[in-house]
């Protein structure tokens, strides 16, 4: 198979007509180049979107209450209800595969009236009562001080972690904010840290205008008792939250005497489902890239097949001579197939290399000109290159198959007679 003579022969044949060989190779080169670039572009888009999701825990369900729409167990419809902290304990105990179950309460928002005062300055901000785990579900960078911890929760400390924009609007430049007090709805909280969120899609300004305080302090300071405004529930990575959310719903429905078929009572946003939808979009994109790329490649392959047919035709007499001298048909077939595969692989490798070069160029331009919306680091991984190689070998085989068969179909005596 790898004898020097065979390779010499392949090279001799392919280099006899350089121009033709290069033209033929170009078809395959072009096909694989387009395949690689399409795949890289798809990957770039995927990376861009994934970067927008950032390191947010995507396997997360957000759940809030709405009004019951069905009467049940003697209770009327159109009834309002509120989650309790006991719901969280029930969910945590009865549903397997959960990672975090975080209760949340919220006060005010950036559109509301001014609710936070520091010295002479006031501002309108969203205030959240949270558990320490929220930082893993909604990642943020602590730029100074620290985040809420369980000490704060247990002792109901009135402490606050404020967004970088909250700090900028309530404090003078250079003023020390850690250890100072802000007044939220007339209750004093000590600032213990500042944060900055990165990777928030389209809403980065508001994301920095939030204040996090311990959930327990929130409940006590603002008279929420054991009410829970909404919850953020994250499942372990192996189990999609989408699969277990119905279990969670039925627990809270039972706790609050909601009709089991009341679909409207529990409002929720399934981040995992949305994320999976986006992920499947990338799957579709990849499929399209392969489809288009392989079709383009196919025309290159047909080109190779065509040329191999002509080569076989031109060499009919030579093949006749070789057979008269005792070369076996299989050996001739192998020769043609190897020429075809060799040509395909070489031109394909050139296409892959050139594609990689173009991708490098695009990345260089992206780096030089700053980030582009939803397009980050277009690339192809080793898996794609391996797949491309397999495609090339298979297509080389296919391209050589018909010519190889036609080479041995002519009987040696007829082949010898051709001029």
């Amino acid at each position, binding site marked *: 198979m790898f004898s020097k*003579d065979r390779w010499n022969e392949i090279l001799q044949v392919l280099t006899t007509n350089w121009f033709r060989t290069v033209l033929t190779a170009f078809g395959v080169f072009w096909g694989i180049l387009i395949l690689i670039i399409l795949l890289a572009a798809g990957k770039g888009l995927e990376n861009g979107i994934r970067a927008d999701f950032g390191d947010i825990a995507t396997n997360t369900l957000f759940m809030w209450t709405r009004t019951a729409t069905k009467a049940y167990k003697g209770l009327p419809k159109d009834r309002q209800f509120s989650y309790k902290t006991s719901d969280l304990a029930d969910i945590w105990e009865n549903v397997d595969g959960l990672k975090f179950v975080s209760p949340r309460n919220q006060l005010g928002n950036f559109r509301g009236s001014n609710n936070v005062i520091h010295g002479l300055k006031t501002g309108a901000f969203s205030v959240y009562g949270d558990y320490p785990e929220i930082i893993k579900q909604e990642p943020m960078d602590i730029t100074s001080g620290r985040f809420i911890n369980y000490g704060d929760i247990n002792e109901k400390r009135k402490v606050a972690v404020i967004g970088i924009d909250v700090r900028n609007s309530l404090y003078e430049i250079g003023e020390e904010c850690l250890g100072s007090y802000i007044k939220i709805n007339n209750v004093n909280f000590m600032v213990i840290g500042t944060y900055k969120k990165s990777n928030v899609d389209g809403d980065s300004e508001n994301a920095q205008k939030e204040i996090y305080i311990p959930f327990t302090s929130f409940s006590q300071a603002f008279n929420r008792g054991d009410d829970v405004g909404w919850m953020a529930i994250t499942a372990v990575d192996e189990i999609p939250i989408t699969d277990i959310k119905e279990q969670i719903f039925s627990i809270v429905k039972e706790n609050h005497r909601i009709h089991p078929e009341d679909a409207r009572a529990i409002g929720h946003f399934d981040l995992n489902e949305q994320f999976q939808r986006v992920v499947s979009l990338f799957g579709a994109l990849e499929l399209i890239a392969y489809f288009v790329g392989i079709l383009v490649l196919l025309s290159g392959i047909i080109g190779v097949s065509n040329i191999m047919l002509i080569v076989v035709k031109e060499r009919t007499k030579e093949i006749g*001579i*070789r057979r008269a*001298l*005792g070369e076996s048909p299989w*050996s001739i077939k192998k020769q043609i197939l190897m020429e075809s595969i060799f040509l395909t692989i070489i031109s394909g490798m050139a296409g892959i290399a050139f594609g990689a070069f173009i991708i490098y160029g695009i990345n260089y331009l992206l780096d030089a000109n700053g980030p582009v919306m939803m397009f980050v680091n277009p690339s192809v991984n080793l898996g794609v290159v391996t797949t491309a190689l397999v495609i090339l070998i298979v297509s080389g085989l296919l391209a050589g198959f018909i010519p190889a068969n036609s080479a041995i179909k002519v009987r040696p*005596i007829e082949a*010898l007679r051709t001029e």
Partner: protein
Amino acid sequence: MIEIKDLHKSYKMGSNSLHVLKGINFSVEEGELVAIMGSSGSGKSTLLNILGMLDELDEGSYTLDGVPIVNLNETKAANYRNKFLGFVFQSFNLINYKTAMENVALPLYYQRMPRKQREEKSLKYLDQVGLKEWATHLPSELSGGQKQRVAIARAMAAEPKVLLADEPTGALDSKTSYEVMDLIQKINDQGNTILIVTHEPDIANMCKRIVHLKDGIILEDKKVKQVRAAAYV
């Protein structure tokens, strides 16, 4: 060496068939130099093709060195050709992108002989035909006579049992023809069995036996007194 009994061969030409060989009985001993003569259409090339396993017989039997040549598939035929037969063609049929030595080495390559041995052997045979210095030349750089000598070296390289030559001098002028015949005679002197198809009487007279074919049957089969080609060179 060669044993042919009641050989028939016909070709289908559309609806009617052409009966080319009509019962040939013919045998060749080891070391013979036989000329097969006949006008075109007499079936001499067909006979040679059947002897060379390039064509199949319709009826009759063919035994080569005690081996019955029956039920050949292409692979088997290729193997037999490689082991038993050497071919010399009218149009030389050298592979034009290979050097003289590579051409001579070709049958040895099909025998899977190691490269080094192959080179030694092909050089030896090129030397025998007097073309050792031309080993690295392409066929396009050789004269007609030289090409035919390379072809003879190639045919002999695999040390075949029988050398089959189809009009070996047909494309050569008479001086070169006699040189080639001289070479063939010398090879025959070493004990090799050779069959030559020709329609030139002077070439035929340089053989030891002449078989005349006409319309698919053997008209005459006679031993002749060999004319040495060396006398004309």
